[in-house]
């Protein structure tokens, strides 16, 4: 499944729901981590931490041009190089050019969703360069020819038997389904790659403008390896992933590791900003920071959506979303899945194209509750739906569903006129009679309403509406007739 291509949300969701391994994994994950994160926020020593941090994020975004300038000056002062990439093509072009110039044959990668977003792997591979994912989960999906289905746990949709068969096939080891044995096999196989690679390509969790460094978070140590052993280190950074000060970085870091996996800190957090000092036996000879826009400045420019750039990619929203928890990450057809993916993917890659992502949630609000930076994702989903309803020239959105728009126009007329409304109820009541079953419910119906009745019975209209019963009550009790009120407009 290629990333970024049109995909059928419903079909992929169905597949996810039919995958027992995925279902079991997501259930355990959500039971522990989603709720766990909520508990962490409830017991924070500073109950205002998240709103304070959110406010700082928004202030940083409000100064983003100067923040990025400060960051790049700091990196350059350390001997690093900074490239500002307008879009995926520019970023890929820079990296490919560098790889060519330095004769790169093998690239080891630390987990980077941005790298998946821009599609850099394919660009390098087309050049005959070997690209190796080193995060265990990413490595597994890479050699399986699949893609990540969760931000933090990429191969959650696969079970140990599948992975065992995969390793037996691709790594040539005897079949085992023991996770430590399989992990050990990957450790050995990837160590060789990490120690002989020409280039390490990582993302960037949180950059720090004040100190001119980026920070990288991992539990496995692969990111440290990929940014220490090869001669070249290229770090891809979404332009919004930068803290103004080291203190901001600290607070974001702690929210990130708690939100992601309930950890006080991940096993490793490394801070780098430039190449090795002369004479150092390790560390890259060149450090390149590629700062990527690729649609982010457009989001930044829209006050309705600007706050989505405060996201620190912790994955807590995935761990609590009931929809994601059933359909899994592949249904989103994007490196960004779950609630954050549902908002950011349409904004980056097309609102019409990803209309299902805008509409395919219940707006329950659990994601808003659990977000460490208090992002109001349901609000933004509704804003996206509004663009789909009427179109939006600014964002290049065409009205998405004419039938639904017509339906709501008619609905609007009906609810705007109480007599018409009452008449519609009467008509509906008459029309439904043949369909009401012996149990008093309406069973499976063909056609438009089939969405509901395919799996559920439908409550029929009551023989007398509340309004009618109220009127009857008033008529039977004239003393209370004054309690009945007409509107000023007599509608």
């Amino acid at each position: 499944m290629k990333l970024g291509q049109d995909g059928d949300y419903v079909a992929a969701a169905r597949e996810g729901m039919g995958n027992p391994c995925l279902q079991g994994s997501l259930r355990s994950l959500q039971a522990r981590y989603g709720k766990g994160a909520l508990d962490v926020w409830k017991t924070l020593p500073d109950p205002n931490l998240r709103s304070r941090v959110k406010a700082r994020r928004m202030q940083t975004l409000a100064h983003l041009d100067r923040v990025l300038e400060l960051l790049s000056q700091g990196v350059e002062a350390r001997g690093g190089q900074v490239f500002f990439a307008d879009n995926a093509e520019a970023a890929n072009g820079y990296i490919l050019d560098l790889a060519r110039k330095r004769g790169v044959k093998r690239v080891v990668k630390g987990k980077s969703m941005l790298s998946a977003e821009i599609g850099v792997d394919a660009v390098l591979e087309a050049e005959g360069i070997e690209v190796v994912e080193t995060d265990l989960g990413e490595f597994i999906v890479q050699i399986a020819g699949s893609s990540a289905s969760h931000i933090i746990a990429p191969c959650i949709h696969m079970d140990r038997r599948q992975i065992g068969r995969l390793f037996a096939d691709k790594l040539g080891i005897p079949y085992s389904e023991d996770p430590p044995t399989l992990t050990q096999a990957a450790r050995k196989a990837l160590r060789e790659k990490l120690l002989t690679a020409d280039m390490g390509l990582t993302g960037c969790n949180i950059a720090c403008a004040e100190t001119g460094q980026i920070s990288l978070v991992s539990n496995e140590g692969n990111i440290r390896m990929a940014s220490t052993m090869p001669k070249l280190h290229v770090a891809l950074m979404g332009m919004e992933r930068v803290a103004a000060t080291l203190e901001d970085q600290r607070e974001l870091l702690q929210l990130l590791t708690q939100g992601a996996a309930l950890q006080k800190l991940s096993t490793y957090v490394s801070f780098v900003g430039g190449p090795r000092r002369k004479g150092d036996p390790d560390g890259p000879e060149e450090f390149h920071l590629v700062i990527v826009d690729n649609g982010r400045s457009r989001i930044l420019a829209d006050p309705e959506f600007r706050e989505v750039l405060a996201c620190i990619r912790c994955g807590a929203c995935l761990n609590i979303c009931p929809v994601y928890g059933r359909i899994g990450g592949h249904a989103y057809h994007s490196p960004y899945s779950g609630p954050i993916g549902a908002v950011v993917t349409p904004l980056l890659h097309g609102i019409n194209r990803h209309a299902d992502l805008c509409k395919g949630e219940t707006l329950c609000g659990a994601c808003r509750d659990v977000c460490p930076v208090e992002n109001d994702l349901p609000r933004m989903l509704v804003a996206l739906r509004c663009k789909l309803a009427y179109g939006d020239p600014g964002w290049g959105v065409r009205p998405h569903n004419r039938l639904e728009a017509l339906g709501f126009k008619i609905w609007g007329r009906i609810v705007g006129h109480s007599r018409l409304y009452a008449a519609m109820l009467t008509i509906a009541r008459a029309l439904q009679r043949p369909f009401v079953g012996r149990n008093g419910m309406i069973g499976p119906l063909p056609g438009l309403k089939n969405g509901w009745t395919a799996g559920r019975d439908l409550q029929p209209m009551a023989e007398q509406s509340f309004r009618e019963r109220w009127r009857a009550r008033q008529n039977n009790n004239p003393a209370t007739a004054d309690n009945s009120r007409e509107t000023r407009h007599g509608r």
Partner: protein
Amino acid sequence: MDDKRTAFLDRVRMAVQDSEETRIAWSELLAPCDDSARLNAFAQRGPDEQQILLQTLVEQASLLHLQTHLCPTLDQAAQCIAEITLTSATEFTAEPALILHDHPLLRALPLHAQAAINHTPRHWTGNRDPEVRNRTLAASIGVTVADWAIAESATIVQMTRPGQPRSTSLVPSIHIAVLLLSHLTANLAEAYALVRREQNCDSWTLISGPSKTADIEAVMVHGAHGPKAMHLVVVTEPVNDAHAGFAVAS
């Protein structure tokens, strides 16, 4: 190149021009953090409080499979390192071998007095020594000095310096970090204050235990790409300032 940068940043500036009136001043955004309270807390910490922090460190460490060893003296620390060397299995190398940071504290350890590891090759990561990379790859155990540790999360702070490279705590199968008790901080905020005071640090890393992953069916496995096992040797009695090295506890 410069034009690209200018165009990029201009686009970003245009995107936020609506907030020009309402946002805080640039100087306020970048206002330095007042570390005085945290630095005082660290400097004035008495032995009783230090013991409490040590207890916390040990408890938190056990949750992360970080093995702690409390050694009152340098002698005992050296003994401890020898024991770890003898009892650890090799993984990527045929024989055990040590690679050690060229740090005054490690130099002060009487490792030569540990007869049991007399034949275990050891190499120091001297500055500009071209052998270091190969010796690191050939080592089964890397030994470093923690600049500071953080009790709350059982974390060590490891600064990269000439003669104290990154790979020592990363590439060998086992990592031993030596810590002076006086360098134990309470929490991340306190540690950051110390890092800020340090100023010119090139690269640095926070390390909280051995490497791990739970990517396969959420089963926790220790030993992903970094060290499979990590030991923290805490020297609990005060040592000579010269041995403490760059970061002096004051």
